[in-house]
């Protein structure tokens, strides 16, 4: 198996977080978890050598929501913002209004097959 880049999951729902962790760990990825935007920023500050291959971020979270997190990320960790593949997870059906560039959208509820493909593309291939 090729060297893997880690995955960062920013999601406030405990059950979803836990399920995603189980899934990606099962596929041998290193997973970093954060409950909301602020926790994710703090985590990245602590683990300063980590550049995730893939960031999955929920839009609606307490303390710091998805959009604010991405804005902060661009400010505080511009390298990560540029290098990581960023996917916004949302239950909303009108998210084409997102104005952030280079951000993809994945709709809830998602298919594990799709997640698998995304992780493969951004965390394993060169």
């Amino acid at each position, binding site marked *: 198996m090729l060297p893997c880049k880690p995955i960062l999951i920013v999601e*406030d*729902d*405990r*059950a*979803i977080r836990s*399920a*995603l962790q*189980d*899934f990606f760990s*099962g596929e041998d990825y290193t997973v970093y978890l954060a409950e909301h*935007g602020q926790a994710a920023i703090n985590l990245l500050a602590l683990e300063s050598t980590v550049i995730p291959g893939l960031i999955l971020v929920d839009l*609606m*979270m*307490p*303390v*710091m*929501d998805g959009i*604010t997190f991405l804005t902060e990320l661009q400010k505080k960790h511009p390298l990560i913002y540029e290098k990581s593949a960023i996917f916004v997870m949302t*239950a*909303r059906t009108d998210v084409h209004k997102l104005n952030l560039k280079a951000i993809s959208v994945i709709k*809830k*509820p*998602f*298919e*594990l097959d799709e997640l698998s493909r995304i992780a493969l593309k951004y965390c394993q291939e060169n």
Partner: protein
Amino acid sequence: MSSLFKIILVDDLKDNLIALEALVKRDDVEIIKAESGEDALRLMMTQDFALALIDVQMPNMNGFELAELMRGSNKTKNIPLIFVTATARAQNFLFKGYESGAVDFLLKPLDAHAVNCKINIFIELERSKREQKDLLLKLTQTQKNLEQVALVRDEFMAIASHELKTPLTSLKLQAQLRKRNLQKKGVEYFTPETMTKMFNDDERQLQRITHLIDDMLDISRISSGKLSMNFEQFNLGDMVKDLVERNQELFLQAECPIELDISSSIVGNWDRFRIEQVVMNLITNAMRYGQKKPILVQVRDSALGGQIIVKDNGNGIAIENQQKIFLRFERVGSGQEITGLGLGLYIVKKILEAHKGSIQVMSKLGDGATFLVELPHTNDT
């Protein structure tokens, strides 16, 4: 605003005006007199007339000339005209303003009956116009109201379906994960311990969905004024203690330790199920925003009845949002998005209102939030 109809009488002879006034006099009419065309025009600029009775034979400006001038101004062009004339000669048809509105004639010497009949017709016309205007206003208002209701309902549906997707996402992920695990690891992977955890997890998500749907039903009942209440005697402190114990596992999951302080032994007549709903709502909110710090739940006696206090040590609520959180699906912006249907506190407020009680929040940013519930004694059975 007076509901009298205003009529203007125009004649250069004062005696004629007085005589005409006597003929035209009615309970639903206010009579204004003018002795020249110029005076009449001046009066018509500042008052609204339902009808003008104009003498044709006047010096300086005759009746027809006055009528032509009236037709030339927006304010006066629609006033119905009755020309009062001594002759039925051809000159009467020199008036060119027929297309612009109602025109009629009265022949001198005036016949009281004829005058009354004609006045009647025009008054009824004006009354009709007023009623139409009122109806149109009412219709427009009703339309606006309906549009508002439709908007609220649409937004509600959007938010509800969005919120339901979270537990559904979780259930779907778990189902897919389990399928994969079965394929990869075989049925041995599914030990009794693993399966028990799986079923518990599923139950929790299903509870959430049920709770959301119950909230939706409550909202719908509140909107149609049908929120049901069943009063019974119970001990408030015991109820809260019991509620917290029953939900221990759920609260453990949230990792916010709950401190119970029950100093009341008050027994009251309230809707137990609904008050449990209130307390449960406040505690789950505290956990969501409590940042894993301890939550205090107090039950105290008050002058009016009972008090329930739920205090968390999370980020707190900004002053400008403190009233908003009690509104229906109000979402607080700028990075402090409230998840859930945003209905919880609205329903809580409505339940307490139905008990003639109240809820207040005290909070400072960075210093947590304290919710204070006042539950007065009721005399209802």
